[in-house]
């Protein structure tokens, strides 16, 4: 008799459990908030005013498809005024992450690594509250014809001041975007 009672308790509780379970509400979509999908470097020729745009775009974030890179061709022995824009293009309209970088400018810094025989030099043209560079704007001066890669690195919480190399900056990599560049 008691066994039957116990079994009935079990049965009733299992019904309760079933009825407690939530209905088939589908979950809400999450769009990665801090995601950086795109880096656009605009290089404006200081003398002619014409500009070259280099982009590095990875719309599906970490993993998935490989990033799409737009290389650029620069003129030899020319100085360009560079501006970096960082976007999250999974949101509409695209979110401008550059603003966040500028808000926390003492915690961020762009580094420019020139590699693969590219004949060019860079210099910072902006500064945070402490007078250390942020790197959202910069000057790039090309030498003679050459080709190689220009890697834009955004570091979070770097050691400031530093000599502009990744090793001296430390911190964590938020962006590391190598873009092929041709100087002719």
């Amino acid at each position, binding site marked *: 008799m008691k066994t039957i009672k116990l079994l009935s308790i079990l049965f009733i509780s299992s019904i309760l459990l079933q009825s407690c379970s*939530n209905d088939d509400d589908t*979950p809400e979509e999450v769009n990665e908030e801090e995601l950086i999908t795109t880096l656009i470097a605009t290089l404006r020729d200081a003398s002619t005013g014409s500009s070259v745009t280099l982009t590095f775009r990875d719309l599906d974030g970490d993993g998935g498809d490989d990033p799409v890179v737009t290389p650029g061709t620069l003129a030899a022995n020319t100085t360009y005024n560079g501006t970096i824009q960082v976007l999250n293009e999974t949101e509409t309209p695209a979110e401008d992450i550059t603003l966040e970088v500028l808000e926390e400018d003492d915690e961020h810094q762009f580094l420019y690594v020139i590699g693969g025989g590219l004949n060019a030099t860079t210099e910072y043209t902006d500064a945070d509250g402490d007078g250390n560079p942020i790197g959202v704007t910069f000057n790039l001066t090309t030498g003679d014809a050459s080709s190689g890669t220009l890697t834009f690195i955004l570091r979070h919480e770097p050691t400031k001041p530093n000599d502009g190399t990744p090793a001296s900056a430390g911190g964590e*990599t938020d962006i590391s975007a190598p873009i092929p560049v041709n100087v002719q």
Partner: protein
Amino acid sequence: MRIIALVLLCLYSNLTLYSQDCNYTLEGKIIDLHDGTALSGATIIVVGPETAYLSDLDGKFIVNGLCNQEYKLQISHPECNTKVFTVSMNTEIVTKAFRIEHHLEELNQITISGNAYATKSETLLENTISQEIVESYSNGSLGDVLNTLSGVSSLNTGNTVVKPVINGLHSSRVTIINNGVRMQDQEWGAEHAPNIDLNTASNITVLKGASALQYSGDAVGGVVVSEPLRVALKDSLFGKTILTAASNGRGGSITSTLTKSYENGWFASLQGTLKRFGDFEAPDYVLSNTGFFERDASIRVGLNRISYGVEGYYSIFKNKIGILRASHLGGAEDQVVAINSERPLIIRDFTYDIDVPRQEVTHHLAKISAFKKFDNLGKVSFQYNFQKNNRFEFDIRRGDDADKASVDLELTTHDIALDLLSDLSENTTLKTGITGVYQSNFADPTTGVRRLIPDYDMYKFGGYGVVDFTLSENLLLEGGLRFDYTYMDVFKFYRTSLWEERGYDELFPELVIEDLGDQLLTNPELTFNNFSGTVGATYRFNDIYNLFFNYALASRAPNASELFSEGLHHSASRIELGDLRFNSEVSQKISLTLQRNASNYSFTVNPYINFIEDFIVIEPTSVQQTIRGNFQVWEYRQTQASLVGVDINFETPLTSQLDFDTQFDIVKGRDKTRDLPLINMPAATLKNRLQYNMPKIKNLQLSLQSEYVFRQNEFPDTNFEVFIPQTETFEVVDVSTPPDAYHLLHFGANMDFKVNSKSNLNFGLRITNLLDTSYRNYLNRLRYYADDLGRNIQLNIKINY
């Protein structure tokens, strides 16, 4: 005793009155409520007529000349509590059994001399950790104390996230039972430690296999059973408090338990723990952001009447664990720098603050259980439990999200179980039961980070039966079967690119319920049927030697992480991908244990072999370029695996005061499909200990332990190359080479003081890593970035009152 009975007879016989016209007969039998044996020599007094009787050798007695009415019988026995029963004489002959309870003194003796806790498996050696050892680890974690057993190691993330590894297996392959409740605390993650306060346990048992079918059929690795204090049936109020202080981490803990019990079986117990540590330290530097804060409390109220009982239990576990700051990395370029650096890249001054990255976990557990023993059925137990596990993981984030958790998962589980333990005959017992589980996972979307584990509802139904058969005095056989049905209803967003890359668009087009462009909402519904079983034998050669043989078939459904992981795992700096197509993992483990128990020397030797079909393993497969740089991709895959190993314990007294014991374990894991070693197998370990006992000097014990951990020489090469733009070179990221072997010395001392008749005080001193040796352990996930803990001096004061 007979004299008392005679006296009673004399006292009452002169008061005897006989009613006319009453010819009803009561045939009674007196039975020991505890073990069902007949009690002879019990005095039965019929209240009213005050006639007295004695039960015979079979516990029987007959009362003639009763009327058709209700009678009260007072039954007493020298060894039992006197009890009054009511009998209705409604037929001419009434047959009834009367169960009386032993005095508590007797019960205490049984409790102390016998096994206070139910046996979990008859044919697998139970490795039990005593209360003293549990108490000496009061400020540590469950994983730390389990580490003291041979064959049990741990998978660590730093020194505060400690996951038990049994014979080379961990996470979902190890079932943890806390006060009869199977823990549901997101145990799938390698950096998710069990959410259990060690101080609630009075006794911890480890079964290195899946034979304890009453708990689970999927414990491919083994089962850890933590049991609370057994409360004796007596009027008492007692408690204990343990205070600890540790030099490393500059913190300590306090835990208190207070128990009130009554002779009538009611009891209540309150318990609380507080642990607080700042940054821990390696021999040469501070391990920044490794502080730890834990608060736990539990309450237990129940009634234990030997033949029936009920219990209510609630516990809350809440912790905050800092994760080494230097382990949080951007990508493979950062990883190269961090691994190649001798010291962690971020070392700050000591602090008690716990910054990001960190984990914050709250676990609620509530249960109601009841049991009743029925004469011809056995012991029936019912249990319902509710668990809620809320896990937050805070990462280093930017802007408005800086204070927001990156992971916010809430796992809710309801579990009901009905079990029956019956003696089919004198030498056969049967354990059977059914269980039902409903579990729901909710991943909060407000984190602004794509869900690591998707939302799901899971229903599980299971049933089992285990038979123990004592063939002769020396031979015991055991056999059992279990079946579990699992249904998972999952809602998951896949990135369209990954969905297509894996070919899911062709395999499972019907699962997509909404296309959001770059993401797809899918609704996989998965069903798993798992059979598990065990057969075993225990042979007792003589009083000294025992042999245990056990074969266990375990079948485990893949967990949510193995099926659905998708995305970047910051703490590991890698992209992890699960696989929707997985089927259950099936393990067959054969284990043999030879045990010798004698005063001159004792040992156990436990070789085993575990064949696992469709073993789920996560391994690096490629390197993927993202805007953040390169990341290594780790994918789960299924393979055929085998684990072979042996656990050895040996102990002997060298002199009357000096004891020596030694432990050795080794396990070899192989991926048979690829003919390669399995990743993350614990290295062989040898521990030797000398203990000097001076019972006359306040029970002083001094011990010195040597712990030698060999280098793991068998590992798969999962190194990869990454392009470093500034040097324009490819650099090897060495993520697979295990660290060197190391040797540690630990010292311990203990003394007992009697405060008064009821209270005593125990002082303990434990120094781990006595020589402040720098070392790294293969199974510590932070071994790439920092050394393990340096010397730690711990003081432990225990007061029993």
